[in-house]
């Protein structure tokens, strides 16, 4: 026996360890030349929640080269301590080399929980870490909780299209590992007065069998949807690529960008990197205008963190109206050109109020 675990019953390929010996909540962060990825800092929000419920603390983990300079950033955003592996051997990212470094640290420190932001790299590396430790992993969590009795972490995720939530436990193994998509959790408040310990660690880097030979940064002409403050998003009801030009014009006037639902992406009206929803991206604009989008759970999953949701849909029965702040039952082909016209006039006059009042009188 190892604590509550009966070693005889456990798969012999797994280490038999007492779960109660594992302590602390880790956030394994991703950093590049621009600093720590915002999605990694967002993971400190659920990490703090879990740590509080477990009566434990939060440790950031940073692996790379020239990354020590960013460690303090994790403390400011809520980590109590940061373990840094800063070594030229990690100048080039390879999922198994980086993953193996985290595995070595986890074997030494025995954290109870490991959270990883589900960026593309995070989704690539986290299952390797979990599997190499022979423990469980839950992808794309939307919430976390702790079972009061057993103290198991509940990793909560929407399986099968976001209508249901599954509460997943890892009762016999530690660490308990989960990922969450960028923008599913808010960034914790930054506190410049926070201080914490920075622990420099050495690990034995494994020999790389995957080598980066070339890279090319894709220049961005506009704000990516996950960073936009205003999004005008189109669905099946937009009816074609021409409709998206109208959406684009409104988005520009509002200082925003255009996005789309899975149906719009599948139809080829808008590229996949602009897809909002469970199989696309989660976004957190101040204003999200859904045009011709029915409001399927998979789509609405992606706008949980949106400040205000407005909907324009010709179908009064569309479920979107039950999930929006402001809805108008109308044809967007009539509404959006009118909105564009009114906004243009308002900009000329310097007042929307006046323009709306004058329009109402006529």
């Amino acid at each position, binding site marked *: 026996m190892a604590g509550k675990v009966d070693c005889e*019953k*456990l798969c012999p390929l797994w280490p038999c360890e007492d779960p109660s010996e594992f302590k602390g909540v880790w956030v394994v962060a991703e950093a590049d030349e621009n600093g720590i990825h915002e999605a990694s800092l967002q993971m400190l929000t659920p990490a703090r929640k879990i740590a509080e419920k477990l009566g434990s603390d939060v440790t950031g983990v940073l692996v790379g080269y020239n990354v020590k300079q960013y460690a303090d950033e994790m403390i400011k955003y809520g980590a109590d301590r940061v373990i840094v592996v800063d070594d030229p051997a990690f100048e080039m990212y390879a999922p198994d080399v980086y993953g193996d470094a985290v595995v070595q640290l986890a074997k030494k420190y025995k954290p109870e929980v490991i959270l990883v932001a589900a960026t593309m790299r995070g989704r690539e590396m986290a*299952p390797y870490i979990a*599997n190499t430790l022979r423990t*469980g992993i839950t992808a794309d969590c939307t919430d976390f909780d702790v079972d009061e009795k057993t103290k198991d972490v509940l990793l909560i995720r929407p399986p099968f299209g976001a209508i*249901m939530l599954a509460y997943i436990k890892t009762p016999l193994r530690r660490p308990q590992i989960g990922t969450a998509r960028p923008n599913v959790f808010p960034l914790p408040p930054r506190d410049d007065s926070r201080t914490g310990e920075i622990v420099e660690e050495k690990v034995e880097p494994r020999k790389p069998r995957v*080598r980066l030979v070339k890279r090319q940064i894709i220049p961005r002409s506009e704000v990516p949807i996950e960073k936009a403050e205003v999004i005008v998003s189109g669905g099946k009801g937009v009816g074609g690529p021409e409709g998206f030009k109208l959406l684009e014009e409104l988005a520009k006037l509002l200082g925003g960008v255009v996005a789309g639902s899975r149906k719009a992406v599948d139809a080829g009206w808008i590229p996949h990197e602009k897809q909002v929803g469970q199989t696309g991206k989660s976004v957190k604009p101040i204003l999200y205008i859904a045009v011709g989008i029915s409001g399927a759970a998979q789509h609405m999953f992606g706008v949980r963190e949106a400040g205000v949701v407005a909907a324009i849909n010709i179908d009064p029965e569309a479920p979107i109206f039950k999930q929006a702040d402001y809805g108008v039952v109308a044809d967007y082909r009539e*509404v959006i050109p009118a909105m564009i016209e009114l906004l243009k006039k308002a900009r000329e006059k310097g007042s929307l109020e006046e323009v709306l009042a004058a329009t109402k009188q006529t």
Partner: protein
Amino acid sequence: MRIVVGIKWVPNTQAVRFDPKTGTLIREGVPSVVNPHDLPAVELALQLRDRYGGEVIAITMAPPSAMKGLEHVLGMGIDRAVLITDRAFAGADTLATSYVLAEGIKKIEKDIGKVDLAVFGQETIDSSTAHIGAQVASWLDWPYIYYVHKAELAREGVLLVERRLEDRVEWYEIELPGVISVAMKALKPRPVSLIRKIRVKQENPVIVWTNKELGLDTRCIGLKGSPTIVSKVTFTPEVPRKKVVYKPRDGLDAAVWLLEQLAKDEKAGKVIERAVRGEF
């Protein structure tokens, strides 16, 4: 090259419904398909075989009904297939599933010959975890890389892949044997050839392995071999929204109403104000 490509036979998620009383999935009458994100992986494997020779073997761990899915990819040009099926594998999470797949690949190496490359789709439409590629690589201790769009041999035993991340294109060399997972929609899958499908039925190139053939410890497979368990399932809580709905006289009326609401709104008001000033 001998390439193994992983396939999942999944219920077509768009047709899946929930029983709100029991909180379980209603799978009856729901048609299954080969996971659409696996098809670009099949295509890439076939292109590599067409260019460099060798064979492509599809592998799946599934109930016997998945035979139909294997027939589909055999119809696309896969050379042979392995169906790993046993009640003992039921209830597996991704760790237990990847263990069986990795052991399947080992058995292919033992019975058929050395495997150079294992190819997976990026994720499945039914659970979209994207775990399996990395987990199989971990069990086999092979190198791996995700989000592959193109692949070619750089030299003997080394594959050059092009992959795309959020903001960059990267070219990696990966030592073989290795694992790659192919990005969603990266390649257009070739159609199923009817003649091939008929021939496939006659030649029956599907090998069926149960746990009798694999001989895996029952503590490492299925439910027992899964460190994660689903403790409960609930409905997703609603995000609180105002839900004000307006039925306008016409488009202009709708535009006025909506802009008025947004301008008055505590959060959206700032955005509208900024738009009017033209300051971004």
